[in-house]
């Protein structure tokens, strides 16, 4: 029956422009339950925009996007119910600087899911231990390293028990060592069966962890395949991109 299982995310012929600038030019791809999809490509290829469209942070001009049963292209979309199902982690962490690590994580569960303080605190401890940062619960974001902040951001998303996690170049602001600790957390999530879409420049990580790789070029999906596709690129563009990237 797995072939009839509808995908968690499905983009079909998505077009998006910022003014005269065409960013997405007919993008289509699917991501199934438990899949880890890596979107790769040069800066300006539209990969981050595609990710933001999936979470309705950008509106599209044409095409359809379905995410966890929500029709993103529908103007009547209820964004808040969508965001209960979809977590997103940003390149710049975007932790709330006036709250401690624990309060950052407790905020949404108490506000949105009406958890009690005690329940939310337990939840915070649980997701923090998941990213290996229980000891930092009472610190403020500025007291943490970039890698730690990013792991807190992941924990904050996990606390909402999302069905899908989006990662927007989450290691681009980190040095190699800190990148490693964040990628390890993401790899654990992938192994546990979380459906994930990540925009990344980490080719080695994409090759190792992604079940699907989407190469975008000039606002189009240029090539898709498994991680192995990176060892055997079919288009000169991907070949050139990997050549430059490694």
């Amino acid at each position: 029956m797995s072939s009839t299982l509808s995908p968690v995310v499905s983009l079909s012929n998505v077009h998006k422009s910022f003014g005269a600038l065409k960013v997405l030019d007919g993008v289509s791809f699917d991501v199934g339950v438990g899949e880890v999809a890596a979107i790769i490509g040069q800066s300006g290829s539209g990969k981050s925009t595609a990710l933001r469209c999936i979470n309705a942070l950008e509106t599209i001009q044409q095409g359809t996007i379905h995410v966890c049963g929500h029709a993103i292209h529908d103007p009547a979309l209820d964004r808040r119910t969508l965001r209960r199902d979809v977590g997103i982690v940003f390149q710049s962490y975007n932790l709330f600087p006036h709250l401690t690590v624990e309060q950052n994580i407790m905020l949404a569960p108490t506000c949105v899911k009406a958890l009690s303080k005690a329940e939310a605190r337990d939840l915070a401890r649980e997701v923090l231990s998941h990213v290996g940062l229980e000891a930092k619960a009472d610190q403020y974001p500025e007291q943490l390293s970039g890698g730690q902040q990013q792991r807190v951001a992941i924990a904050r998303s996990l606390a909402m028990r999302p069905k899908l996690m989006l990662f927007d170049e989450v290691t681009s602001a980190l040095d190699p060592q800190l990148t490693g600790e964040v990628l390890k957390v993401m790899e654990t999530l992938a192994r546990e069966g979380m459906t994930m879409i990540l925009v990344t420049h980490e080719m080695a990580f994409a090759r190792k962890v992604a079940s699907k790789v989407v190469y975008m070029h000039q606002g189009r999906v240029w090539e898709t395949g498994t991680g192995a596709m990176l060892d055997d690129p079919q288009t000169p563009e991907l070949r050139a991109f990997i050549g430059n990237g490694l």
Partner: protein
Amino acid sequence: MQSFGLIHVEFLAWAALWTVGLSLIAFVGGGLLGFVVALARVSGSLAVRAAAIVYIQVVQGTPLLILLFLIYFGVAVAGFSGVPAILAAGAGLTVYSSGFLAEIWRGCIQSVPKTQWEAAECLALTRWQRMTRVILPQALRMATAPTVGFLVQIVKNTSLASVVGFVELSQAGKLINNSIFEPFTIFVTVALFYFALCFPLSTWSRSLERKLNVSRR
């Protein structure tokens, strides 16, 4: 004729209390009203935003003196004669402060990075929760120093309340001058009183600015 003495200084000190009282009314009233206008100014609704912009422009574009006249005589025209001077002055200064505080606070709210809004939005918080739990606490930190700084403006501008017959520091100075006619001595003393009220405020504002800028952002 009596010359300037302790009794006059006492009278000025008493009037200075009214200046402080009027300043507090203006600050609290203007703060409450200004907060509502600031929220309206960043509202999601275009109509609400436009209304807030018009309010701020009208208030900022009207001299406080005219504002006080309008309220004092406007209320009388509306059929309520004999409005106590403190009410008219308090209302005028409240409107005046609200127009400026709203704009100061609007700036602080909007200087919280857009990514903070986005992060809160992506955690499924409602617009109100985003505002009260994420944006306002950060804006407050930025707003403190300029708000205290604006208090200095309020204190000095209470002097205009004398035009509606309110006896505060400046009006008291005028009254004394009418009886003993020593304008220089009297108004230097009045100025010293204002300075004594304003100097601590501006010092406080500057130290807040240093403290809040250096620490957590």
